[in-house]
């Protein structure tokens, strides 16, 4: 990008901006910030060029269960010292195969002795996600740890309690969040199935989708033109950063059976941030009947309108964003290729879609009102001058990199 922003009588003739120019405006409280919904309305009225000239940053949001989430905790040392080979927080095991007193608590971990799915469908009322929420709420949590003794770490067990403020570090690190796009899940079988996409009724009686569509972060920067390593974001009610691409980051362009291109899918983000400055409105334990426990995470990504191309993508509407319809009774679990067609987010949000010539009611798993609120909060932060945008250290791989998924043999 050239950074040429010739100002002529107060009207910018060029539609290109740099990160530095936008940040200067943010600092002076002059930046024009809009949510992705507002940008859509603005572009409809004034077009891409005017939008690129007049709008500096667009904010996106998503608030949805994201299983690949968790936190690194560092508890501090006891007297005498213990290495902490195995660690439990409220009976939920945290992974402690790290240096002394460090552990990672995962969102989907459930307590020892949970009945799981033995009384199907299991309820999974409490898990790692709920525990993370309680930590953020400053609730006192039981800590139990065992270890073999060493000369430097002689203590072999400890039972105590902690709060988030009493431990040294708590770093939310989510290896796979903010899925660019997601399946619309249905059930072709004659029995009810219990999935991470919720309860799916038999014989194609409902369809669940899980994306904020036109507000969703990676659907608004589909080719990773602005988001990359180091991008500052809204994470769990506080400030976070993009650490890397997420696991299973396989950016691609969706195509239907006729070869028609239906937009991007497959990107994910690995996110990091200080848990101590987040809040439980946007980090919430969740339970999926018959499936497991998880964490609902609120994420907001700012997109700087550097040029018209970025604006075009950021202004894409629900009617032009598509999800594949996938059968979760057979195709998904058995990894059979193919789908039941594509459906736009506008159709999904209407409450009814047509699958195999049948009218099927739809429901979301991802909170659209939550996504809208996050985009609004992030807009406020940027407008207030408290949140500046970041030029990524490195952009993330896009579909041109043709990363393909390996299949696990066995």
């Amino acid at each position, binding site marked *: 990008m050239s950074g040429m922003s010739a100002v002529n009588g107060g009207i910018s003739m060029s539609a290109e901006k740099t990160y530095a120019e936008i940040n200067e405006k943010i600092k002076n409280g002059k930046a024009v910030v809009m949510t992705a919904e507002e940008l859509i309305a603005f572009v409809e009225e004034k077009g891409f060029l005017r939008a690129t000239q007049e709008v500096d940053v667009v904010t996106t949001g998503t*608030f*949805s*269960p994201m299983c690949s989430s968790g936190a690194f905790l560092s508890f501090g040392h006891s007297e005498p010292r213990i290495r902490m080979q195995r660690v439990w927080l409220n009976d939920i095991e945290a992974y402690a195969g790290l240096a002394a007193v460090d552990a990672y608590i995962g969102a989907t971990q459930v307590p020892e002795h949970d009945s799981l799915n033995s009384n199907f*469908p299991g*309820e999974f*009322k409490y898990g790692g996600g709920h525990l993370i929420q309680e930590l953020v709420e400053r609730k006192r949590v039981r800590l139990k740890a065992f270890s073999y003794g060493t000369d430097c770490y002689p203590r072999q067990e400890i039972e105590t309690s902690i709060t988030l403020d009493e431990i040294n570090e708590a770093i939310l690190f989510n290896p796979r969040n903010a899925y660019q796009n997601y399946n619309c899940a249905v059930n072709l079988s004659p029995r009810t199935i219990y999935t991470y996409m*919720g*309860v799916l*009724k*038999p*014989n194609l*009686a*409902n*369809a*669940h989708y899980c994306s904020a569509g036109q507000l969703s972060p990676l659907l608004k920067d589909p080719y990773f033109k602005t988001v990359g390593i180091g991008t500052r974001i809204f994470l769990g009610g506080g400030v976070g950063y993009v650490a890397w691409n997420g696991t299973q980051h396989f950016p691609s362009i969706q195509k239907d059976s006729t070869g028609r291109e239906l937009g991007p899918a497959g990107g994910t983000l690995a996110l990091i941030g200080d848990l101590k400055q987040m809040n439980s409105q946007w980090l*919430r334990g*969740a*339970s*999926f*009947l018959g499936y497991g426990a*998880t964490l*609902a995470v609120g994420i907001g990504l700012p997109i700087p309108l550097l040029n018209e191309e970025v604006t075009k993508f950021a202004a894409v509407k629900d009617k032009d964003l598509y999800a594949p319809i996938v059968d979760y009774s057979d195709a998904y679990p058995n990894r059979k290729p193919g789908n039941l067609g594509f459906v736009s987010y506008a159709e999904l*949000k*209407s*409450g009814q879609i047509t699958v195999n010539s049948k009218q099927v*009611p*739809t*429901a*979301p*798993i*991802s*909170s*659209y*009102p*939550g996504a809208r609120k996050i985009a609004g909060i992030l807009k406020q932060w940027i407008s207030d001058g408290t949140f500046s945008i970041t030029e990524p250290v490195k952009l993330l791989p896009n579909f041109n990199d043709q990363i393909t998924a390996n299949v696990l043999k066995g």
Partner: protein
Amino acid sequence: MAPERIVLRFTPDTTEKPVIYRLVKDYDLVINILRANINPQKEGTLVLELTGEKYQQGLEYLRQEGVSVQPLIEGITRNEQLCTMCGSCTDICPTKALYIERPSMEVFFNNDKCIVCQLCVKACPMHAMEVRF
């Protein structure tokens, strides 16, 4: 004996069966239907008061026919603090007591339409739907 209040839930296959007729004829039960609903997916819900000697046998018959039988509880409330307005309950709720307003996509709970089937109680990932006894 005071009448027992129960909720019956029917799947599309069981909606068609003449179970009420059987309850009267074969089990000699007195039935007072309080609420009835069949949704477009042909899932039915009946809230009944039942009295009679063969009450237990009648319930046993219903269960054998694949009808779910649950005691009627006082009511259901939505804990607004816990609800994230995800919307995933709205196609589980058989009567649209839980529904999405468009285009805001906000989720609302209309108590008047609730037949207290409790399907939302377990289906809600945030445990926002609470049973009031």
